């Protein structure tokens, strides 16, 4: 079966971002970009399905500016077969991204679509679920285990109190949680080979997708800074402070 993986180019997770002085957003000039960590897990899961002989082709897709080609190449180096960039230079909301992905799903007819559970920039946690609604496919979000058997996929999900297992009819959508797998590193020969793998570029217009949004960002601010604390010298002093100064115990 064909597996489609959606990925996103985001600020590297180790970078401590700074808010722009005019409050228009976060300063992304000259900041290291990378594949969203949850998307890496999604690519890894698809590649493992291929290695098990379950997936026949792994297609990776992203929606974003041309710079995102770099992340598609990374995914290709990790084992994806083919890539599609839906090129859009404005920052799109989850619904617009889900609509673009729906158009790609209609074209490619994958049996399984894997996404990360959330992107670490917008922290939305929406796109996979929205794609589920648009395609009418079942969804297995926050997956920590995925087992394909016949025309069904069994997904173990991380929920607030523990784990839940659901069985979904294929085609289905899975969003990855951190513990689904440990992504591999791309080897140098694979990075070289990835340069030759096919990468198509399309536009939302060509896919017939509207990117209109009902939400706009008015401003972006830094969170309130915490007051600097103090270092205590002993456990006794700590207990005394918590009882008499902070009065929390």
């Amino acid at each position, binding site marked *: 079966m064909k597996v489609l993986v959606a990925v996103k180019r985001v*600020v590297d*997770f180790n970078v*401590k971002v700074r808010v722009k002085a005019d409050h228009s957003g976060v300063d992304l000039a000259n900041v290291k970009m990378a594949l969203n960590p949850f998307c890496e897990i999604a690519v890894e899961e698809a590649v493992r399905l291929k290695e098990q002989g379950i997936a026949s082709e792994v297609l990776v897709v992203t929606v974003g500016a041309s710079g995102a080609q770099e992340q598609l190449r990374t995914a290709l180096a990790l084992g994806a077969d083919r890539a599609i960039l839906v090129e859009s230079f404005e920052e799109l909301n*989850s*619904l617009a991204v*889900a609509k673009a992905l729906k158009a790609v799903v209609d074209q490619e007819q994958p049996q399984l679509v894997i996404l990360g*559970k*959330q992107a*670490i*920039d*917008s*922290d*939305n*946690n*929406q796109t996979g*679920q*929205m794609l*589920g*609604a648009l395609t*009418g496919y*079942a*969804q297995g*979000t926050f997956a*920590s285990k995925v087992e394909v058997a016949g025309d069904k996929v069994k997904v173990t*999900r*991380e*929920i*607030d*109190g*523990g784990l*839940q*297992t*659901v*069985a979904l*009819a294929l085609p*289905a959508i899975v969003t990855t*949680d951190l*513990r689904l797998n440990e992504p591999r590193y791309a080897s140098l020969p694979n990075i070289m080979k990835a340069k030759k793998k096919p990468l198509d570029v399309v536009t939302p217009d060509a896919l017939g997708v509207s990117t209109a*949004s*009902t*939400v*706009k*960002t*008015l*401003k*972006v*601010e*830094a*969170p309130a800074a*915490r007051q600097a*604390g*103090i*270092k*205590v010298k002993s*456990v006794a002093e*700590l207990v005394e*402070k*918590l009882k008499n100064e*902070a009065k*929390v115990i």
Partner: protein
Amino acid sequence: MAVLVIAEHSNAALAAATLNTVTAAQKIGGDIHVLVAGQGAGAAAEAAAKIAGVSKVLVADNAAYAHQLPENVAPLIAELGKGYSHVLAPATTNGKNFLPRVAALLDVDQISEIIAVESADTFKRPIYAGNAIATVQSSAAVKVITVRTTGFDAAAAEGGSAAVEAVGTVSDAGKSAFVGEELAKSDRPELTAAKIVVSGGRGMQNGDNFKHLYALADKLGAAVGASRAAVDAGFVPNDMQVGQTGKIVAPQLYIAVGISGAIQHLAGMKDSKVIVAINKDEEAPIFQVADYGLVADLFEAVPELEKLL
């Protein structure tokens, strides 16, 4: 203008997260209706009717909604939601699971994890693991929103007397089925609702050493959390994880033991009122957010702390 709040419940009982979400709804204004979708959810519906400020409770009681599978509940919520100005759900794993599906069915953008209501169409939400706060405005006909429960006080669970009304609509997409669940058992308070949280990180070295934290937590009536490092190393189950990808907590007191304080962990706890860090590395970033820091070996400091309480 009326607001529809989707209840978080276990059929037999209403979850506390629903109360925080009702408070967010009160800040938006208008009538507040609560939807309880489940199977045999009479008790949860009765509890919802008693919440102060709620004027109506809708109950969709059907086998199709037993485990709130998103394929089944999202069409129900979207259908009911058309009659409301806002649809709110707590940002629990459950709320996050079905609400974006509802938004897409209504063809509107969703706003995730709001921490403040500025007006009926303007909200604040954290982005970049809480390192920036965005103010966003929605022009959608139905505003679909998840609520970060630690951003709002709990509404009074008693004092209301809302009418309970059954909803006849049944949607069963037949595409998904509940197979089973494995819930972690704990006698301690729930992590997201606890007044005091004691968390351990990689510095705990192994799962057995968490007994020191459990002993301390029991003395304090606290919940026990963990950093991702402790979960990944298999010390504790993943539902104890505090952080960007785990649970968001904002207790009165947060005690971080053997936790370095990575950005992703801070995203889950930096709104705590008082933060205490116990770490032997005085350069650890956790000390930058801690109100009280103790540079010490946790295996000496934690038992001593327990003894002094």
